[in-house]
Structure formats: C-alpha cells, structure tokens
C-alpha cells in the first residue's frame, strides 16, 4: 500500500510546486484561487498520510529521476514519517486556506511561496537521503522567509536555514559509509563507530537547535505575513524536530547516548526558560506567540534528552514514555502553534496593530479569532484536559522513571529539569492569561482596535478546524500518539507502547491507570454542570450590565472614549526584568568582527559551506 501512496505523494508535491511557480507569474487577482488549489493539494497530502497511518504496511522507497548529478532524490515512507507528514499537511492546509481567504487585498499575497514551502517541508519528511533532506529544508524554509516584507533582510534567516541544511549534510556525511551517498538504508546497514556517530549527532543538534531556537526570534519574523508565520511555527519547526528524531534515534543509533543527551537537556532547559520568559514579557502579540514556539521546542528537546538517557540506561519504558511526550509536543506545535500564529496574525491584520497595549475587547468584535487564540494558547499550557497537560504528564513520568545511579550531579540536573518543566508550564499559563486578557478581554484601548472586524467567513475553517483538533488531542492523547507513531515508538525505543499509552489512559502503572483525560473531562463537566444547576435552581434573577466601577478614579474626559488608559493594565510588567548581561561584542576586536559580519556576508558564508559539504559528500 505504501508504494502507490508514495507515488501519489510525489505527484501532489509536484502539483504544489507547479501551482506555486505558476502562481508567482499569474496576476495578483488569481492568488486566492492559487491558495485554494494548493490548500486542496495539501489537504489531500494529509488524507494520504492518514491512509499510511491507518493501514500500516512495510516501508516503501522511491528514487526520483531528478536531483544532483549522481545523487538522485530518494524518498521513503515508514512508520515515523507518516505522523509527521500528517502534521505538516494540517499546518500547511490551514496556512494556505487562511492565506487564500484572509490576506488583505492591498498587500502581496504569499500563497504561491507558501505552496512551494509546503512542498519543501513534505519533501524533508519523505527524504531517504541527506541531499533530499537538505534540499527540502532549504526549499521549505527559504520559501517561507521569501514572503517577508521587503523592508526586512532576507539574508540572516536564509543563512540560518542554509547552516541548518549544512549541519544535516555534515551529520549524514559522518554517519554514511564511504560511497554510501548519504542514503539512509546504507547508513542503517553500515552504522559508523560511536565516535563518528557522536560527532554527527552533535552537528545535527547544533544545526537544528539553532533553527528551532533562533528562527522564531529573528527580527524578520515580524515581517512575515500571518500564514507564513503559522507555517514556520506549525510546519518548519515540526519538520526540524523530525530531522532531529530521525538522526538521533534512527540513523545515529551507534552514537554514545549521553553525548547527545546532555546538550539536549541543557539546551532544552534554556529554551524553556527563555522562551517562556520572553512570551510573558513581550509587548507584541505575535512575538509572544513565537517565543511560545521556542518554549515548546525546548520541552521537546528535554524529551529527546530523556529518550537518550533511557537508551543509555537500557530502560526502554523511560525512552518510550519520553518519545510519546515528544510526539505529543510536536503534534501540539503543529496544531496549536499554527492556531496561535494564525489568530495573532488575524488580530494584527484586522486591528491594525500587534502591540498589546493597543488591543483589547476583541472577544466581542472577533469572537472566532479570540476563540482560536484562547484554544491555541490553552492547548499549549499544562492545564487538564489540554494536550499540554498530557505531554507534561508523560515528561514528568519519564523524569520519575529516570535512572538515579549517576550521582549527585545528575540528581541536581534532574530536579532542575523538573523545576524548569514546572516553571515552563506555569509561564505558558501566564502567557495565556496575559495575551488573551490583553488582546481579547476587557475594554478596547484605542479606536482602531474597537473597529476591528472578524476575518471573512471562508477563512474561518482555518481556525475552527485546528480548534476542534486541539480539543480532540486534549481528550484523546493516547489514540493520537498511537496513530501518529504507534509503530515507530516501538521500533526506535524497544518499548511496548501499549504499556505506556493506552487508548484512554497515559502512563498507566501497576495499580493506577495514570492520567485518563476522558473521565477527568467528564467529571469536570459534571462539576461545572452541578454548579450551573445550583446557580439557576429556583432562581429567576436576570443579571444586569452596569458601567464600570473605576476603582475610585474620576470619569474619563470625552476625548478618551475608552476610559482613562491608567485604569487599564498595559501588560508590560508581568514578571521581574531579566538581569542585564554585558554583550561580548562590547570588546573592540569582537566589535570589529561583528560589524563586518553583516547579514549578506553570513548568507554567502553559509551557502559556501553548504556547497563545500555537498562536494565533500559526493566523494567516491
């Protein structure tokens, strides 16, 4: 079954590229049609991925008649790639439908570039050799960044993507046997020695870590249109995590697990803390949403570190729990991350600003977008029955099952990790309260935000479908994990998945079923229903609305129609400020290098490195 499906995937990727390329040359008025066609193609890719997941079969491969001389593109479908294909397709479809239906008429429509980006990301996940994987990454990442505002520089983000691709080439070059041509089957058949594999894995972590941790924080991210930012968050970041999982757990099996585990745990901890902190301090809605992506990537990195720790200690249960958590986090990033970015972008478009202190009261004017923002941010938090809680639960159980025999240092690290997971989860909750509270609740702060309108009806499914998927993911995390990577978790960790992820429970123990979201959700519903009944039992008192009590402030003058600004929270101070750190380039010689290392120079250097690596990888 997988063979014909792979052929259909290739056909759909070609269709996406053709639609995108043609859309670039067609008149601007046809862009919505281009977006819808590309959205349908991406949706079909998602359905094909579902077929792969529901009817599992043996892995299938395909060599395309295109590629580098002597190194044609090689593709394959296996249990791991199926789930990621589904997630990238969902993010791509939502972004393309939104781009087609909700892009402002007076601004460049990004649909053609996004169609090419979705094709590139799908190619990344389907790749069965290093060249195809790097090409897909560059195509996907590059096409996303080309949609930015012309005022923003393209060089730095492009350099980042090129360096990530270069790191992949280095990693796979180190892993592949001589003459293997970076093909995955050759690497699996002839694994390298532990030292080479460890260096390869470290190179992959460095490249993908930079992409995951820095890309959402680049200044150019501000200049991306909403659907492009959504595809970056929900498509590129999951694809980068897929590359990490593929290299760390599949191709680089022979590497010493602890070599990679420590950088992942430490880097993940830093990303969780900094991403969460910045999300709570940022003064702009979309920047805060992007920082949330960094926090999410950090949690996934911690999960991957725990998987490797379990592999090192020969504890397949620990590795299985942690990998299940990682896959749930990736699914959340693809669905909730897309939802948050699209909602934040819709608010930016319709309310004319991204600044939190100029928003407010959008729950009345833009109820569906507000619901999207609430559901997306709520899904990322560790509050039951959100999917974020299921992921946190699995990560916590994995930390609990972690080996204790590495000594005091490791114990301190483990306690710190749990502390950071808790803080990261709380910071996600604070970000939810702050962003939804500032943008959607309360009173409008400026007339422009008060005049905001809901996005057009045809674009609303791009928000409502992910909202529904978030609810499903929260209530049924077990089936979701089993669907996305049921076979892959067993293959990669040796764990029996059914022992850790049941249909209705997560991490069941010998006498307790662990976390059971459906009963918890039902009991919560019963409690809410009981309160509702008590509130309305035998009382028929209708509520009334009244003007605000301004806490003793005098009434606002007529020229402040939304009240005195001092009577509303400006949201700028939520957490204590970070201690100032002197920048390393304050020193003279570092400053000189920093000045010369302009963005175009960086892009040129990265492209040069990539070319050199390609030449090296093509060695006989």
């Amino acid at each position, binding site marked *: 079954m997988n063979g014909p499906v792979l052929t259909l995937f290739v056909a759909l990727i070609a269709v996406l590229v053709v639609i995108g390329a043609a859309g670039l040359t067609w008149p601007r008025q046809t862009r919505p049609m281009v977006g819808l066609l590309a959205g349908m193609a991406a949706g079909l890719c998602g359905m094909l991925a579902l077929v792969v997941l529901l009817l599992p079969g043996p892995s299938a491969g395909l060599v395309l008649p295109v590629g580098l001389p002597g190194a044609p593109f090689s593709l394959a479908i296996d249990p791991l790639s199926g789930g990621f294909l589904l997630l990238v397709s969902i993010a791509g479809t939502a972004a393309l439908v939104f781009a087609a239906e909700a892009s402002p008429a007076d601004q460049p429509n990004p649909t053609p570039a996004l169609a090419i980006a979705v094709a590139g990301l799908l190619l990344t996940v389907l790749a069965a050799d290093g060249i195809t994987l790097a090409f897909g990454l560059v195509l996907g990442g590059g096409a996303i960044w080309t949609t930015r505002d012309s005022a923003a520089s393209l060089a730095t983000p492009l350099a980042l993507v090129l360096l990530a691709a270069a790191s992949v080439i280095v990693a796979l070059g180190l892993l592949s046997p001589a003459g293997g041509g970076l093909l995955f089957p050759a690497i699996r058949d002839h694994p390298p020695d532990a030292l080479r594999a460890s260096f390869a894995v470290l190179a992959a972590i460095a490249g993908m870590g930079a992409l995951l941790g820095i890309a959402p924080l680049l200044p150019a991210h501000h200049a991306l249109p909403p659907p492009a930012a959504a595809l970056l968050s929900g498509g590129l970041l999951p694809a980068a995590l897929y590359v990490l999982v593929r290299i760390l757990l599949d191709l680089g099996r022979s590497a010493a697990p602890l070599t990679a585990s420590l950088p992942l745990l430490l880097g993940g901890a830093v990303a969780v803390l900094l991403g969460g902190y910045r999300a709570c301090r940022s003064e702009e809605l979309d920047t805060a949403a992007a920082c949330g992506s960094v926090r999410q990537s950090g949690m996934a990195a911690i999960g991957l570190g725990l998987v490797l720790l379990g592999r090192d200690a020969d504890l397949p249960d620990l590795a299985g729990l942690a990998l299940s958590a990682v896959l749930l986090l990736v699914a959340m990033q693809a669905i909730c991350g897309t939802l948050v970015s699209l909602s934040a972008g819709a608010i930016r478009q319709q309310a004319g600003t991204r600044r939190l202190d100029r928003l407010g009261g959008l729950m009345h004017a833009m109820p569906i977008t507000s619901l999207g923002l609430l559901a997306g941010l709520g899904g990322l938090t560790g509050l039951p029955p959100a999917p974020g809680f299921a992921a946190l639960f699995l990560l916590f159980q994995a930390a609990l099952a972690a080996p204790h025999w590495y000594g005091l240092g490791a114990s301190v690290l483990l306690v710190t990790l749990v*502390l950071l997971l808790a803080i990261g989860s709380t910071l996600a909750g604070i970000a*939810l309260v702050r962003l939804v509270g500032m943008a959607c609740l309360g009173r409008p702060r400026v007339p422009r935000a008060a005049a905001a309108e809901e996005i057009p009806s045809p674009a609303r499914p791009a928000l409502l479908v992910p909202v529904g998927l978030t609810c499903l993911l929260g209530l049924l995390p077990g089936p979701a994990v089993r669907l996305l990577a049921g076979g892959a978790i067993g293959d990669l960790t040796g764990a029996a998945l059914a022992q850790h992820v049941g249909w209705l429970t997560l991490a069941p*123990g010998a006498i*307790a079923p662990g976390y059971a979201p459906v009963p918890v959700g039902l009991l919560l519903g019963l409690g809410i229903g*009981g309160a509702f009944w008590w509130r309305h039992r035998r009382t028929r008192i209708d509520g009334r609305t009244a003007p605000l009590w301004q806490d003793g402030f005098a009434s606002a003058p007529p020229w402040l129609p939304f009240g005195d600004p001092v009577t509303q929270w400006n949201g700028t101070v939520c957490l204590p400020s970070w201690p100032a750190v002197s920048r390393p380039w304050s020193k003279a010689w570092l400053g000189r290098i920093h000045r010369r290392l302009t963005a175009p120079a960086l892009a040129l250097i990265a492209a040069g490195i990539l070319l050199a690596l390609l030449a090296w990888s093509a060695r006989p």
Partner: protein
Amino acid sequence: MNLLLPFAAQCVHIALMVLTAPTVAGALDWTEARLAGRTGVSWFAPWQELARLRHKQPVLAQSASPLSGAAPLVCFGALVLAATLVPSFTLGMSFAPFADLLVIAGLLALARTVLALAALDDGTAGGAIAARQSMVLALGGEAALLLVVLALGLAAGGTNLDLIVGAAQAGLMHPSAAIAIAVSALAVLAVVQRDVGMPEAACFSASGLALLRLAEALRLLLWIDLIGAVFVPFGMASAGDFPAGWGIGLVTWGVRLALALGLLAGLRTAAGRFSWRRIPVLLMLALLLASFAGLLALTRAGPV
C-alpha cells in the same frame, strides 16, 4: 458489593467535602477570632453568606464577555473535582484510580487561570492587579507543588494519591526526611493560599461570587486533607470496610481537621496575616523545601 461500597464511599466523600467546606472555613474564622480575644461569628456564617449572595441580582461590567459568567462555574467544577480526588476518610473510592497528584495540581492551576482571565475581562485596574497577583503566586506555587509531587512519587513509586497514602500507611515511604520536608513545603503553600485567598473574587457578584466563596472553602479543605492524608494517614480504612472502618475513618478525619484548624488559627494569631510583600518570600521557601525534598528523594532512591 465490590463496586457499590467504593461508589457509596465516593458519594459520601463528595457530600462531606461540599457540605463541610463552608463550615470548616467558618470554624477557622471563629477559632482565629477566639484566639485573638474576639467573640467571632457563627461557624455557619459562610452558609448564610452563600444564601444571601445567591438571591442577589448579578451585575456584570459592560465590557464583560461570556467568560465572566462561565469562570465561576469552571473554577468551582475544577476545585470540586480536585477535592473529590483527595481521600478524606477511606481509601479505594471509585475515583481513586484517577486521583493522580499531577491531575490535582493541574486542576488547581486550571481554577486559578480561569479566574485570572475572568478578572481581566472586567477591564479595570483592580481586576488586572488581582490577575497579576494570582499569576505570581502560580509561578512559585505550581513549581513547588510539582517538586513535591516528584519527591512523593519517588518515595512511593508512583504519583497516584491512593498509592502514596497506602505507602505512607504501611511505612514504605523512604527517605522519611524527604517526606517531612515535602509536607512542610505543602504546608507553606497551604498557608500562602489561605492568606492570599482569591483576589479575583472582587470582580464577581451574586451567585458567581457565592460559587467562588464555596470554591475557596473547598480549596482550604482540599489542602488540609492533602497534607493530612500524606503526613498523618492513620485511620483511613478501605472503602469496603463498612461500617467499622468508615466510622473510624470519619472520626480520625474529624481529629485531623480539628488539629489542622488549630494549627492554622494558631499560626495566624502568632504571626499575623502575611502581607503581599512577604508572599514571594514564603513561595521561595516552599520552592527551596520542595527542591531539597526532591533532591533527597532522588539521592536516596535505589536503582530502578
């Protein structure tokens, strides 16, 4: 019979929690007043307050969204579910398999987050200040609570509350010092919760406010039960041990409750109410204690 008694015990537990929570809150206020040399109001004053509030007309701010109406319901629902999962007089009730400490911590966080959102829905400075206070409390409190869960989970071999209480009853929780420190952290958190209360309640009126008052009382009872169940789990029988076990369990639960009320009231009388500026210090103390408990439990735990 095997299913009926646990279900009956669960129903009795829910009824006990909901019906005694306001009375316990009233008793605590009365004890504090007596210790301070005042007469104090009746134990049942909270019930009178609930009845009064329920018959008042709700007033909503002009800018309020449907969230303001739903928040008290969700907050109450989350806290009543959390209280349902914490055992009081028996173990092995119907919902015991779902009584994971992480779920209970998550439900407490859910109640706090929904209330903070609703406080911002008013669009007033007072609501925003209340929401910010609540979030600062969450930052230290939830982290400390999860570290306590780590310590207890390591000592008992799982995070299910019935499992933890069973292990504590059997004396299988090791090292004891970690458990004692973890429970101290829980106690500090309980004191903080008691002192801070629900600052967002000022944004609600009538039946919504009544629900929040009931939820606040439930949260106090939940903390008392949680600390009591982990630290002094004596007398808690199996749900199937009816009627003798239930009777002993109810009596010991009453004793635990009385002890906790005495300690809380005594602390308030001796140390006074902690001001908002001292709350972060208390939270840091809870965090330090919880970290130390986790570290101790990890270093003393044997190989998996």
